Each structure stands twice: as structure tokens, then as C-alpha cells.
């Protein structure tokens, strides 16, 4: 089990290989379809992003509302391929990790190699379990997007699996190959 704390460096990323179990702590940002579309719009116009993504991780999640007195509701990952068109330009800007579920396209796997970054899988449909690892949550951009607003989360020991590393390896392809009959 590898313990990792954000922000991360290229040195941290180089140590991670597909299949590694990681416990992630520190601050991470949330963003999914609608917020990514806005971030990409800003990059296209050459404008500043509302968050500093250098050395950071983006978690693809739209949580359920928190009950009174609670930090957050259920908060598991959403499917990542929908974010594929938006990911490479963010990686070019210094993003070091993405957390979601499901495989990534070739352009993302290539960008992970080029910019030294990783893609982690969290267990989809384990939103209540993951909520236990979230210690603080606040909206930092696009509150009008509701569940899709960009949040800053403080996480402690968030359980993740390295699915794509910075060497171009893909656990989805390797894992399935191993068990296919």
C-alpha cells in the first residue's frame, strides 16, 4: 500500500505502476462534465483557470447533498471516458492525476506519458464508503452547477488503484488479458 499526499511531484508519479494500491491524502479538486467544459473554454481563450491545478488531482464526482451536520453526501467516481476530450489540455497545464472509473482513451494514455501523470480508479458505486475519507469540502468554482460545481476536498487515505501510469501501461487491458478465457 503506497501512501501519497497532494500536491505531488514528477518523482512521486514515476514511482507509481499499474495495479498499485494507493491511499491518497491532502487537497483534491472535483470536476465532471459541465465544469470541465467551462475549464476547456477558458484554456481555449487563453484565460486563467479558477483553480491552480499544478501538481494537483481532479476527482470526477458529483456528490449527493450533505445531511445537516455532515461534510458531504455519497461521493463515488463517475465514468471517465466522457472527460477524455478535456483531459490532455489540463495535463499540459500541470495536472498530475485524475480519479474516476472505467478505461481512458488512447489520447489520454499518451498525454499521461508525455506530461508525467497518472489515472487512478476509485470503486464505482462505493460512494458511502468514500465519503468516510472526505474530511472537508467547499465549493470553489461554478456553484450554479450544483452537484457538478468544482469543490475542494480534503481527503484522508482515499483508497485508489493505479489504472494508467506514466509509462503508458493500462491495467484495464492487462487485467482483462490475464482473466479472459
Amino acid at each position: 500500500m503506497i501512501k501519497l499526499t497532494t500536491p505531488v511531484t514528477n518523482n512521486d508519479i514515476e514511482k507509481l505502476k499499474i495495479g498499485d494500491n494507493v491511499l491518497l491524502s491532502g487537497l483534491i479538486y472535483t470536476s465532471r462534465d459541465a465544469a470541465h467544459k467551462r475549464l476547456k473554454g477558458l484554456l481555449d481563450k487563453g484565460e486563467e483557470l479558477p483553480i491552480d491545478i499544478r501538481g494537483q488531482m481532479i476527482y470526477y464526482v458529483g456528490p449527493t447533498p450533505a445531511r445537516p451536520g455532515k461534510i458531504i453526501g455519497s461521493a463515488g467516481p463517475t465514468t471517465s471516458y466522457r472527460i477524455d476530450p478535456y483531459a490532455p489540455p489540463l495535463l499540459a497545464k500541470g495536472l498530475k492525476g485524475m480519479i474516476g472509473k472505467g478505461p481512458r482513451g488512447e489520447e489520454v494514455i499518451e498525454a499521461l506519458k508525455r506530461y508525467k501523470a497518472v489515472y487512478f480508479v476509485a470503486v464505482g458505486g462505493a460512494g458511502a464508503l468514500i465519503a468516510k475519507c472526505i474530511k472537508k469540502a467547499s465549493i470553489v468554482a461554478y456553484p450554479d452547477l450544483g452537484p457538478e460545481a468544482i469543490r475542494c476536498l480534503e481527503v484522508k487515505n482515499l483508497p485508489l488503484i493505479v489504472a494508467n501510469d506514466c509509462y503508458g501501461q493500462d491495467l484495464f487491458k492487462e487485467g482483462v488479458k490475464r482473466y479472459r478465457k
Partner: protein
Amino acid sequence: MRKIDTQKITEVVKRLCMEANYYLGDDIVKALKKAQRIEESPIGKEIIKQILENSQIARKEKLPICQDTGFVVVFLELGQKINITGGELYEAINEGVRQGYRSGFLRNSIVKDPLKRENTGDNTPAVIHTEIVAGDKLKITVAPKGCGSENMSEIKMMSPSDGICRVVDFVVDRVNRSGGNPCPPIIVGVGIGGTFEKCAQLAKQALLRTVGIRNPDSFYADLEKRLLEKINNLGIGPMGLGGRVTALDVFVETYPCHIAGLPVAVNIQCHAARHKEAVI
């Protein structure tokens, strides 16, 4: 005529929305425990362990099993001797969804328009399928459907000459192309026959069956077993990272069809397979 007030219907739908999202069915829990035993991949085993832990936390703390609390699909079996009083039936159901999602702290995931994409803010409207049946009872099934698995579903208008082999190939190929996207271990609902829209509905209705229960027609029971074996031989495994357990079960539902047609629909359901029912 037996009278049922819309207020009662709203209350029941509200309760079912919350219960479906907090309490994973006993059949799914049992199937996941079996999957945990037979899974050979260490990563897969750990994933199933987390899924089971998650269901316990959700149950205890009344937290949604999954943050995608879904599009509410409602199946009504409305006895023809019932007189609905106090308002409109569909509005009563949508009011139940509205109240259930607000007071249950469930996520609003519905947009008003598929291309303009503005959130309705209360998770309405529901998709409602009504069947008029004999008797004076109203059966309400609430099945919140997440979109990660819904996006991996497909319908194909096959040709009668394609036969059972090509039907099997289509279903297995659909699961194969879905890979880790729909949150495996999945449940596969297959509709065969009917018309274009009937077939899709059969596939969705198939997902309401209890895990482990086979189609009463032995021909289709065998087809379900054959499909399950082929799907689990794909090696996709929990979350698509490789393993023995890709699907917990496969359910086939059929309907008569046209001499020129063979529609086949595959509706994929993630492991957070949620449906609760009540009879009024």
C-alpha cells in the same frame, strides 16, 4: 370501484425512492458475497469487499449507495377496479419523487432538455410505465437507474435468420465493449421480441427480477445460463480491472414479434441494482 387517494401514492413513492437508494437488495448482497468468494483476482476481491462495506455504511447511515441516485423509473400495475381520487396520478408520482429526493438528500440528476441541459432541480420527471391489470390493487415499483450503466445499453433490430447464436454474440459483445464503464459486476437485462420500444422496455423490466431466479421457460433459462458463462469468461472483472466476475446475473424477457423481425435490447445495470416495490 376501490378508491385510492393520490396523497397515499405520493407518500409511497417518496418512501420507495429513499429506501431504494439506501438499502441494497438482499439478493444483490448475497450475490456479491458469492462473487467475493469465487473472484480470483486480488484487486477484484478487494473491490467487491469495498462494495459490500459500502452497502453496510449506506444502510446504517441512510446515505445513498451510489452518488448517482438515478433517473427514477416507475412501473405501475394499476388494477382496473381502482378509482384514483384527489388529483392526477402522474403528478402524484412526480411529487413523491420531488419529496423523496429533497428530504432524502438524494442527488438531482435530471436536465429539462436533452440538448439545452438545465437541471430541473428536483429530479423530476420520472419515467412511468403503466400496465392496466385485473383487480383492485396498485403495485408501484420504483427503480432509480444510474446513467453509467444506462449509457452502455443498446438495441438492435436483428433479422429472424440471425437466430440464437447471433443474439448471444450481440449481447456478449455489448458487455465486452462496455468493459469497466458500467461498474461491473453488472446485471444484464435482455429483451427479445416485441417492437422497437417494447423490446427496450422488456430489457429494463428484466432488471427487476431477483438475482438467481431463472426464466420459467427452460429454453430461456438455459439461454440465461449460457450468456452468464460467456460474459464471465470475458475476464472484465470488478470495475473492469480483470477478474472472474463480470456479471452477477443475466435475465432474459421475451414477447411475441413480427414474422419479419427479431429485436434484441440489452439494458445494463451496475452492481448498485436498486428497485423497491409496494402494493396499495
